């Protein structure tokens, strides 16, 4: 390249960088990105361009690419707090919480004054269910940035999560007074009230905001939940629907809207299940145990009896845990799964939780039927605890599970019980309930024969027992 051409190229590069920075400041990452992509053709890519590119990708929600771009930038500039923060943000969005925590910690170490790094750390800790630590860090950020609304909202969320409802209420009321046109503090305050078992007040807060002409997904969604808690399902349906329309890509809201309206798709969409549990993973276990969730215990009890029957110390073959969640069945079967324990779940975050337990020998993050089709092995025990409440028709699901059952194996599963004489229904909570007749017919269709079908209280929801069936079955052909 001639000196003149090189000079011209440098001038272009300087303009591209300057313009891209302006566009990023104006929150136009989609327009900044092509400019930054061009800069990557330079023989030596400027560090600032690498950082800006990771930033643009993150803002565009291309988290995988953002993490890679930040990683590349870190190769060139190891330990840079800004880059660690960017990668941590991307990883957090990808559900790589542990890695995100590493990045956040490294970013805080690299720049102890960085509020971005501390904020990220607080967000990760919240996701990991470590409320007290999250509160501490979130509070430090608000100290440094007393006028920063998102920082204060983060602190409020951490308070809520840590069960410090009075503190959350006080903070949110102050934020609301400071920015009365902002919906989020109001929605959070209502949610806080809901968690304090004060649904009428949650309803009042959100309705007042909506009457003031505020429109926001969160307001409709919290109001709908408050109405569900008060058993006013028809009214809740209106607001779930409004929320779903305002967030057309949110499978969780779409499903709840459909459930509240009495729509009955034949199974919950994968996106819904994934959304519910990805949001839930950190506190799933505590919630279930708090609700008196009994199914893993029932599985353990049944396995103990079975082993006594056959005179074995451990389950005579590998175990398949369908919809393993955070691995509660694995915990219940601790010491009995000598031949291997394979878990399948749709939720990345659930799988991460399960992996952290170190009990399962094999884990697959996949949709149930896809994973079943991929598996080759036969399993001595196939367990499906609290999985079929996401399926309407059980025929296919049971057939798929039965196909992986060893000849002398046991299938154990729970369903929520529908009082209807036959068929299945989508309940108000968005979960499916099955009639005894449907379960029996589906077992037959799947080539399974029931050894025991026992009515059980599966757990308590809002103090009310959730009635269900616990089924132990084996293959009919054996």
């Amino acid at each position, binding site marked *: 390249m001639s000196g003149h051409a090189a000079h011209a190229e440098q001038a*272009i590069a300087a303009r591209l960088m300057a313009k891209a920075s302006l566009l990023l400041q104006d929150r136009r990452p989609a327009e900044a990105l092509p400019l930054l992509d061009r800069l990557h053709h330079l023989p030596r890519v400027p560090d600032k361009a690498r950082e800006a590119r990771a930033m643009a990708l993150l803002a565009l929600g291309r988290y995988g690419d953002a993490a890679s771009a930040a990683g590349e930038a870190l190769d060139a500039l190891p330990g840079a707090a800004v880059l660690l923060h960017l990668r941590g943000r991307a990883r957090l969005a990808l559900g790589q919480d542990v890695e995100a925590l590493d990045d956040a910690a490294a970013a805080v170490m690299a720049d102890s004054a960085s509020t971005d790094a501390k904020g990220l750390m607080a967000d990760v800790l919240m996701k990991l269910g470590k409320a007290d630590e999250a509160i501490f860090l979130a509070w430090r950020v608000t100290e440094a940035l007393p006028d920063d609304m998102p920082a204060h909202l983060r602190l409020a969320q951490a308070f809520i999560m840590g069960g410090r409802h009075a503190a959350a209420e006080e903070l949110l009321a102050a934020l609301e007074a400071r920015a009365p046109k902002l919906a989020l503090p109001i929605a959070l305050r209502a949610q806080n009230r809901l968690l304090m078992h004060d649904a009428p007040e949650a309803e009042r807060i959100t309705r007042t905001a909506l009457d003031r002409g505020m429109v926001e997904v969160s307001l409709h969604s919290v109001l709908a939940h408050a109405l569900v808690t008060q058993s006013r399902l028809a009214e809740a349906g209106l607001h779930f629907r*409004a929320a779903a329309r305002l967030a057309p890509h949110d499978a969780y809201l779409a499903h709840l809207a459909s459930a509240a309206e009495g729509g009955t798709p034949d199974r919950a969409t994968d996106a819904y299940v994934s959304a519910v549990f990805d949001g839930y993973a950190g506190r799933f276990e505590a919630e279930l145990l708090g609700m008196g969730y009994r199914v893993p215990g029932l599985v353990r009890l049944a396995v103990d009896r079975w082993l006594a029957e056959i005179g074995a110390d451990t389950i005579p073959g590998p175990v398949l845990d369908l919809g393993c969640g955070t691995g509660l069945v694995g915990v219940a079967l601790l010491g009995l799964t000598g031949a291997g324990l394979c878990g399948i779940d749709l939720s990345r975050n659930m799988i991460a939780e399960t992996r952290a337990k170190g009990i399962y020998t094999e884990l697959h993050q996949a949709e149930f039927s896809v994973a079943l089709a991929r598996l080759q092995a036969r399993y001595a025990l196939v367990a499906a605890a609290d999985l079929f409440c996401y399926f309407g028709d059980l025929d296919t699901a049971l057939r798929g599970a039965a196909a992986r059952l060893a000849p002398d194996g046991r299938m154990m599963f729970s369903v929520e019980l529908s009082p209807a004489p036959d068929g299945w229904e989508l309940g108000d909570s968005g979960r499916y309930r099955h009639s005894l007749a449907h379960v029996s017919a589906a077992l037959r269709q799947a080539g399974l024969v029931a050894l025991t079908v026992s009515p059980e209280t599966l757990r308590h929801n809002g103090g009310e027992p959730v009635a269900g069936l616990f089924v132990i079955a084996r293959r009919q052909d054996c």
Partner: protein
Amino acid sequence: MSAALQTPFTAGLAALHRDDPAAAVPWLELALAQGEGGAYASLNLGMALTTLARFNEAAPHLRHALQALPELPEPGVRLGVIAATRGDTAEARARYEDVLRRHPRHVPALAGLASLAEKSGALDQAAALVARARAVEPDEPELDFAAARLALAAHDAIGAASLAEAVLHRRPCHALAAQVLARALLLAQPPAAALARLDHLADAAPFSPAWALAQGFVLAQLDQVEPAIAAFQLADTIAPGNPDILGELGRLLARQDRAEEALATLLPALAARPANLEWRNLAATLLWRRHRYAEMVAMLRDGIAEFGPHPTLNLNLALVLNAQGRQQDALDAADAAVAHAPGNLAALVNRIAVLPYHETLGTAATLAAAAADIAAALPATPPLPAVARGARSKLRVGMLSGGFGVHPVGWLTLAGLEALPEHRFEITAYSLKPRRDALNARFRARAARWREVAEPDDSALARQIQADEIDILIDMGGYGDTGRPFVLTQRPAPLQLKWVGSQFGTTGLPGVDFMLTDRWETPAGFEPFYSERLLRLPDGYVCYLPPSYAPAVSPLPALANGHVTFGCFNNLAKLTPAVLRLWARLLREMPDARLVIRTHALSDPGTRTLAQQRFAAAGLPLARMELHGGCPHTEMLASYTTIDIALDPFPYTGGLTVCEALFMGVPVVSLAGDSFAGRHALSHLSNVGLPDWVATDAEGYLARVQAAAADLPALAALRAGLRQRVLASPLCDAPRFGTNLAAALEAAWAAA
């Protein structure tokens, strides 16, 4: 050469040589005045002025040069270019052919003639002319570009792409060549492959603007406007200030409603390419959106003076003159556009859009006649083929509008639509303008389906509506800014209605079955003015949603001021000479009274001066008037606290403005006409129980105002209770409106 040694003529030539025609003009004019340079001074001056698109000034110089220097081809070619730009094809052709008789190998004349042939569809002839020119000048990229264009027109995608690529290698900022390349690539292969080809070219030359430009065109053609803008921004950053790139970027920014940014790129582009009529019209409409009316008028008038009465220039001129309150001038411009292009639908729509404001012609009968002209000019569009429709428990209602948000359509329909029973009606919104505001969010929360449809053409939109199996399609845009009423002529839904959104009279359109109205807007006997059947709601035809942020009603200001303050917050288009004269009489008869006029057009300095002149000419006392420009909505509502009585204009009466005044405690005196627009105020005032505030003639109007002003205690009492009265009235009773609307739609459905 130092400047001191130059003569005016040589200085002019030097400026032309460095491509600075603006600098050349004064030197050459001086040379001409001093007799220096002879006919060559005329020729060069004519050429400089042509480049600057100052055609009227250029032409005489060029004609003089042609006469004095008949052997030279340039004067004739330049005169041909001027004629071609003005749309005078015959003269342009004669000029080029004349040059070619003397200079058969003259490339610009061949190219000019080829361009005329291409525009007339004689592609073979054009190709032959371009081939002749290329034989003379094989290295001229512009000829390659012409060949590329022709190849594309002949569906030779590969040939076109290869020629356009060759042009771009040599002239990387050639936006039009990039456009041809984009079209050719998309014609030859799927979009992903087209983009991959351009990525490949860009990888090889990442700092050439050419490939970013072509990517931008591909993306724009695929309606991916944001990525297309990004690509053009990239091209502009690589080659800053290039007018062709700026122009394209401006076009896309305008499509995204980013008016300020679009103007910032288009105005410099237009300064460099003043003869680009498309950019001129686009820039004019952007000035319109920013309420920069005086600049817009100047830009359009310049265009018409230089390039002739192109219909689009006149259409835009009519709109802006109307917005400035010059209704007669507006109608003249609209008529000129119609006369220049008889049967042109855009011109007829433009005419009906300004007609209801005219002080004598804004009547139901003239509007019905104008609508009939539109219907008569409609091309024969066969209705969409019938399709099988599934049985459903709810009626599917489609709403077509660009006003789903903070817009009169929003304030006057949202509350009623929210109250339309969900279990009986399923709403699909076809949004003709992307909006993001609080009212828009409420529309989204109400609509089961949301479709942004600004981009697809009428036929595609009609097919989309049909595919959605809409039962009842409601047009809520009419002949307004973003309206697409002709979609209805293709009959995408079995039942089609007109409601709100430029609802100033009949649509006249086949396919519009009903007009939603009320007994005040269209009492019995008004049927002959409407091609639609009149579907009268039991109360008013709209439901007003008062803003939650409206300030409190104040005590009557006259009690503290000691004089009455009148106010009118309607746009200037509604303030006809007759209105101004009547108000002048009122203020003469009430020497203490004051008048406040507030509207966004008064923020524009040129328009404000013009308005002051018009007010003074009508006899209004400027010293007792306050003129205010636009302001945020809350502030506008708050300024009603200074108004005692609102004066409504006519024949186009206030709609939302009346509702807002009433909600702010300010009663409105109105004069009802017979057009739909002429009875908006009557409908709203009757709906809140104040029909006696509506006069039927000017004398009655004056008398009503004076009576109200003479009894301040009564006015104060009315004001104190007016908001509550409005809220309790059917005008704001959303549940009642929802029930009525539901019943009306079901009745129309049953009758269809």
